[in-house]
């Protein structure tokens, strides 16, 4: 079956932002994004306003999906790290916990080695949080607990979107 519904709660969101803000400082990077493998932006810290974050998220996921396809063709499970080097800015893209994509944008004030080192540590912390989130989502699904905000949605609500 496809992976369960991705849900983000306030607590975890804060913890995640705390970790990537720390990573932003320690890796001397400019911007950090967390993106769902389906292309949806989870969070971003740093100079995010300079970028079209929605497009960035969808293209990153497309990029990871395409390289994942390449990996399978040559018998690898996935390529867990991608690195794109530009004239000024570079992108370090890695997969966290098999499900989420961590994007670090940095320039010459940092280095690939430093970014790799810091990303590794942050990834472990992030993996723990996302594992917890997944468990929570699975339990919710089993208990069919309906604190779900869309349970009470009416046809009028839906029609109103298209006015």
């Amino acid at each position, binding site marked *: 079956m*496809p*992976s369960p519904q991705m849900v*983000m709660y306030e607590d*975890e969101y804060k913890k995640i932002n705390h970790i990537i803000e720390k990573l932003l400082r320690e890796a001397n990077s400019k911007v950090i994004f967390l993106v769902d493998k389906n292309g*949806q932006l989870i969070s971003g810290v740093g100079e995010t306003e300079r970028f079209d974050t929605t497009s960035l998220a969808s293209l990153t996921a497309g990029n990871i*999906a395409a390289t994942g396809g390449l990996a399978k063709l040559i018998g690898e499970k996935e390529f867990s790290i991608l690195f794109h080097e530009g004239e000024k800015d570079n992108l370090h893209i890695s997969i966290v916990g098999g499900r989420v994509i961590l994007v670090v944008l940095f320039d010459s004030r940092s280095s690939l080695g430093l970014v790799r080192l810091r990303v590794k540590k942050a990834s472990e912390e992030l993996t723990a949080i996302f594992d917890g989130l997944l468990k929570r989502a699975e339990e919710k699904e089993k208990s069919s607990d309906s604190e*779900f*905000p*869309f349970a009470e949605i009416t046809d009028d609500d839906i029609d109103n979107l298209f006015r």
Partner: protein
Amino acid sequence: MSFINYASREINCKIVYYGPGLCGKTTNLQFVYNKTAPEAKGKMISLATETERTLFFDFLPLALGEIKGFKTRFHLYTVPGQVFYDASRKLILKGVDGVVFVADSQEERIDANIESLDNLNINLKEQGYDLNRLPFVVQYNKRDLPNIVSVEELRRELNPANVPDFEACATTGEGVFETLKAIAKLILIDLKKGK
């Protein structure tokens, strides 16, 4: 799979436009893009060849408004229609919440439509989805052309399950928003059930 963010009170859903090459998937997105208010849309991205054939995907983010205090966002994707881009099509179907099948109504494309629909079924199954249980609508495009097959015949070939279907002319926009509304509605109703 839709992504619900309680922290930023947002819900994101993914819609994929599927169909044979040159059936008008990209044209559908372009029309939606051109007719949507600037504050409701993001940038449209087209990863296409120099001759404007879709190479990987087109992407258009839309923000429709709020439901129960949650911002509702739809991410529209197209797949490359040409047969040999199958590996790319599989990737784009990952995490899909609803599918629009765009059929080319011209007589000579009926086989291409059937082949593409079969391909959609196979690719969805590979990912553990079942088209019969996924929000799904069909659009019969290019109704303005002279050499077209009747809607009844198209329906028989492409829509045996009798899902919502629409006649369209994507270049003029006829039927484009009706199709989008229908799939968005089906996805939201699906969400309402809580899966």
